[in-house]
């Protein structure tokens, strides 16, 4: 009766399909007020005054400003630099300044038009270049939130012996998570003084930590509950701490429940985006195209506050050299401050940016060395026993080669390269055709020693009436957490899938299993769930009980609960002794394991309009073990589709540091027509420390489309574009420039 490896039906699927799942805007709270946010209209400066129009019925409203905060005015994340509400100083457009609540939602919004804020504006710093040049100091003296250095071997020596040296610069911009459910949070204060929030989120305990500081209350006086969450993709990792703080302050002051639900026009410009990046490569190769040295420089734009930028940069840095063995590597990276809304978590978390650069750079190297990029990749890719840039020796579960070879074969890549080259020589054809390849790795779990600091806990409980419940703060946001946890627990315990339930993430009832991020839920938290289930099984075995029938579960309940209503088996993360990481030198085992993916993009470009149409995407992804193949495939297809958007369509237009196309009408994500058919193969190279061999899958598929599609477009149009998205306007411009040079 094994569950793992079977495509069990989504646990909460029926509620979602019947419209019964309760998202935060569906929750009806008696006497609830609607909260709205007054935001800054300047980039940078000082608030001189806030004037409330006389004659407006302000008595109907609850108002909260920085002065009302009982504890500390900050959004607690890694640094403590970001205020919950701007207090005099403004650092970016759309920065929250003041909160209002009213029983009528439209009236709450209406009031915003009757408040006038006077500022003394300062000249803003809007670009990474200006920030690095310290046009003005926004963060410490150099504007650098964080920098990293990875060094392996001797970079100078590597370049000295080079037959070829290839340099390139690559650039990517903001990307919006574009979850279909906007951010939203409700809050109320219980009669015992407990501040409670419920809403759309990925990380209940991040919010818990933030609220403890905002209110200066003991941990047990803060309660965070997840409601059904309509997509996250990183956009509901850290931002909900902000909106939860706002809703809770209003509720606390109003002494009534308050709900803040953003509309799209507020959510898009005001909340976090993927970090823009500039990545420069200088690479040394021998005569056969073997890598001798990689010198890589990464700059990311963090926006106005530190938020999660340091860890985004860390992941970007650790993936910057690609899944390739190279004896001499240097990666220098930094993330800098600008007067733009803070950038934050988004699926892939820095890696899609640096992997785009290294993978497109492989195409440039192939041109320079005059071998095809497939051969170049085959000669350099990681195998078992390879050593990474941080000196990690890959002892197991390296599926890069299998993923690559399967994808190449299934897609007919080699044949198409020849076929399309000849097609493109025919001037009568109405399109240019192109095919492009990428190969990536993605570390599962937290970076470096992150999992040790997190010290996550998860468990399995049995109630006196015989219900088995997984206990974790890891949220179901569409990726299939509930189903996957149930499968793992069922197999570890030796019971059918249907017998296991998952407790709703609520800090009152579930332990802190860490944030729902970093492709860690299956590999890390799933591993804890498995251990907790094994602990329960062992406890039962001691009593001579094996769970075979429902009546065995009733017996188990009696045995394990005794006179208590519930018995919990909670386990904590333990770092395997063999995993060694040094944060100071950035050397060692950066991640327990990497997942791998290859993708071939097959597309054509209309010669009349320069529009790109992808005809087919073929991909193979090594995720160790697919706990639920259908759900894993859903992650791969969905992540790839976001990558297609990143590659071709998604363009945040910023003017004076603010997004000016912040609506679905003008921020263009792919429709069903824009998303091509995908051929997905799951490769399973098991990881011994992952539950049932599983690694992470959440972020990996986001990494592949950018570089493969860019390679295919460059091939098709005979241009060299090094920037995403590949808008038709950019393709036309590149064609005109290329023809001008000829």
């Amino acid at each position, binding site marked *: 009766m094994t569950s793992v490896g079977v495509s069990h039906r989504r646990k909460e699927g029926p509620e979602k399909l019947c419209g019964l799942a309760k998202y935060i805007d569906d929750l009806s709270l008696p006497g609830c007020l609607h909260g709205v946010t007054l935001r800054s209209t300047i980039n940078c400066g000082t608030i001189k005054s806030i004037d409330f129009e006389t004659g407006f019925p302000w008595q109907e409203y609850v108002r909260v400003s920085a002065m009302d905060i009982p504890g500390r005015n900050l959004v607690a994340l890694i640094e403590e630099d970001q205020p919950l509400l701007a207090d005099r100083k403004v650092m970016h457009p759309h920065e929250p300044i003041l909160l209002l609540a009213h029983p009528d939602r439209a009236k709450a919004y*209406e009031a915003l038009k009757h408040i006038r804020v006077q500022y003394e504006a300062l000249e803003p710093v809007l670009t990474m270049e200006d920030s690095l040049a310290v046009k003005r100091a926004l963060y410490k003296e150099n504007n650098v939130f964080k920098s990293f250095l990875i060094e392996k071997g001797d970079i100078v020596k590597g370049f000295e012996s080079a037959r070829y040296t290839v340099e390139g610069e690559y650039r990517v911009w903001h990307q919006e998570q574009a979850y279909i459910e906007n951010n939203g949070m409700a809050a109320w204060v219980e009669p015992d003084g407990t501040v409670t929030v419920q809403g759309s989120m990925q990380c209940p305990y991040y919010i818990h930590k933030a609220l403890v500081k905002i209110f200066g209350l003991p941990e047990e006086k803060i309660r965070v509950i997840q409601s059904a969450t309509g997509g996250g993709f990183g956009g509901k990792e850290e931002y909900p701490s902000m909106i939860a703080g706002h809703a809770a302050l209003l509720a606390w002051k109003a002494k009534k429940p308050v709900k803040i639900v953003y509309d799209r026009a507020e959510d898009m410009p005001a909340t976090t985006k993927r970090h823009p990046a500039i990545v420069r490569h200088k690479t040394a190769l021998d005569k056969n195209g073997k890598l001798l040295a990689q010198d890589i420089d990464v700059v990311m734009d963090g926006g106005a506050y530190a938020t999660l930028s340091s860890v985004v940069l860390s992941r970007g840095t650790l993936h910057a050299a690609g899944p390739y063995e190279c004896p001499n590597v240097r990666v220098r990276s930094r993330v800098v401050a600008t007067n733009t809304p803070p950038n934050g978590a988004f699926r892939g978390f820095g890696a899609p940016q640096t992997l785009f650069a290294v993978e497109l750079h492989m195409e440039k190297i192939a041109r320079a060395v005059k071998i095809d990029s497939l051969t170049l990749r085959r000669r350099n890719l990681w195998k078992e026993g390879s050593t990474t840039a941080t000196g990690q020796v890959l002892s197991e579960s390296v599926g890069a080669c299998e993923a690559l070879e399967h994808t190449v074969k299934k897609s007919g890549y080699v044949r198409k390269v020849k076929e399309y080259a000849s097609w493109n020589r025919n001037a009568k054809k109405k399109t240019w055709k192109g095919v492009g390849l990428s190969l990536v790795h993605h570390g599962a779990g937290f970076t470096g020693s992150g999992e040790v600091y997190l010290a996550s806990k998860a468990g399995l409980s049995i109630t006196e009436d015989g219900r088995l419940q997984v206990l974790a703060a890891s949220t179901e946001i569409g990726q299939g957490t509930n189903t996957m946890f149930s499968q793992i627990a069922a197999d570890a315990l030796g019971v059918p899938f249907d017998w296991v339930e998952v407790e709703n993430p609520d800090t009152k009832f579930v332990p802190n299993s860490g944030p729902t991020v970093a492709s860690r839920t299956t590999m890390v938290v799933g591993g804890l769930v498995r251990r907790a289930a094994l602990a329960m099984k062992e406890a039962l075995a001691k009593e001579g009980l094996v769970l075979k029938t429902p009546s065995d579960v009733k017996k188990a309940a009696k045995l394990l609960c005794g006179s208590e209503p519930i018995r919990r088996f909670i386990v904590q993360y333990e770092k395997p002794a063999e995993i060694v990481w040094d944060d100071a030198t950035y050397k060692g085992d950066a991640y327990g394991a990497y997942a791998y993916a290859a993708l071939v993009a097959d597309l054509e470009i209309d010669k009349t309009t320069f529009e790109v149409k992808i005809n087919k995407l073929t991909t193979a992804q090594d995720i160790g073990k697919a706990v639920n193949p259908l759900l894993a495939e859903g992650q791969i297809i969905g992540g790839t589709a976001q990558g297609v958007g990143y590659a071709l369509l998604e363009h945040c237009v910023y003017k004076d540091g603010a997004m000016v*196309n912040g609506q679905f009408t003008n921020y263009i994500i792919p429709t069903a027509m824009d998303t091509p058919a995908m051929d997905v193969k799951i490769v399973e190279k098991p990881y011994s420390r992952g539950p049932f061999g599983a690694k992470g899958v959440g972020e990996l598929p986001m990494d592949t489309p950018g570089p493969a599609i860019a390679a295919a477009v460059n091939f098709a149009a005979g241009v060299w574009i090094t920037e995403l998205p590949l808008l038709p306007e950019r393709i036309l411009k590149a064609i005109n420039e290329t023809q001008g040079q000829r």
Partner: protein
Amino acid sequence: MRGAPETMAVLRPKSGAEAVKLYGQQTKAVPLAGGTDFMVLWNLGLLNGRTILDLSGVRDWRKIAAARTGVLVGSLATHAEIGRHPTVRAEFPLLVSACATIGAAQIQNRGTLGGNIANASPAGDTFPSLLVYEAVVRTVSPRGKRKLPISEVFAGVKRTTLGPGELIEAVELPFLDKRPSRRLFRKVGTRLAQAISKTVAAGILRLGKGGVVEDFRFALGSMAPTAVRLTEAESAVVGFKLTPAVVDEACRRLERSVSPIDDIRSTREYRLEVSRNILRSFLEGNQ
């Protein structure tokens, strides 16, 4: 959402005549047809406190009627209804194609031709087709009825030449005298479906004896404050054979009729070059 329904006054006529009467009394009222554009702004809280002339009850303006000389499309016929009508499908395929590219099914089921025209967006996808078919807009106001060639309806970005209290009743589509030899509708949007146009083109061309062009009409949207006929390019073609020199001249003249801009959706350079490419491939007969 930021719209405040209780601040809205709603007039609900049950017939065209009643609509005209009410609008004549309250010319500041906003006529509401499908609402697919108005409601977007209303949801942003930008139109609270208005008086709305809700035309949903005006059944007589929803009809599509084929006659001997053409088709009369009621102003409240939806894009989906127009796209389904057999005579429109047979005689006005460019309009059918245009209707099929407006938003997606949900928008096509609500948006109306009259609402589309009155809204006068520079990116209105039906307008190049209407210009090519030389549609005539029938209006009605307390001052009486008028017939305006579609080319005289648009006054600028989201502005029309309709007077106070004047409503669009129907749109006449006159049948073409002769079948065109070629026709084209091409929308280039921000993505493959449900997109706003970067440029949108419609054209017909009829070749006579010896390959001389007898009729050529070509119009573009999203290329100027209003959709426009390329009269300069047309006159370079009509009466001539489609030689490379004639095609080149027509493409050169395209720019004289348009004034595309850089905006959040595209660039002037792209709009011009792509529009020229579309015109060229149409004239060369290989679109």
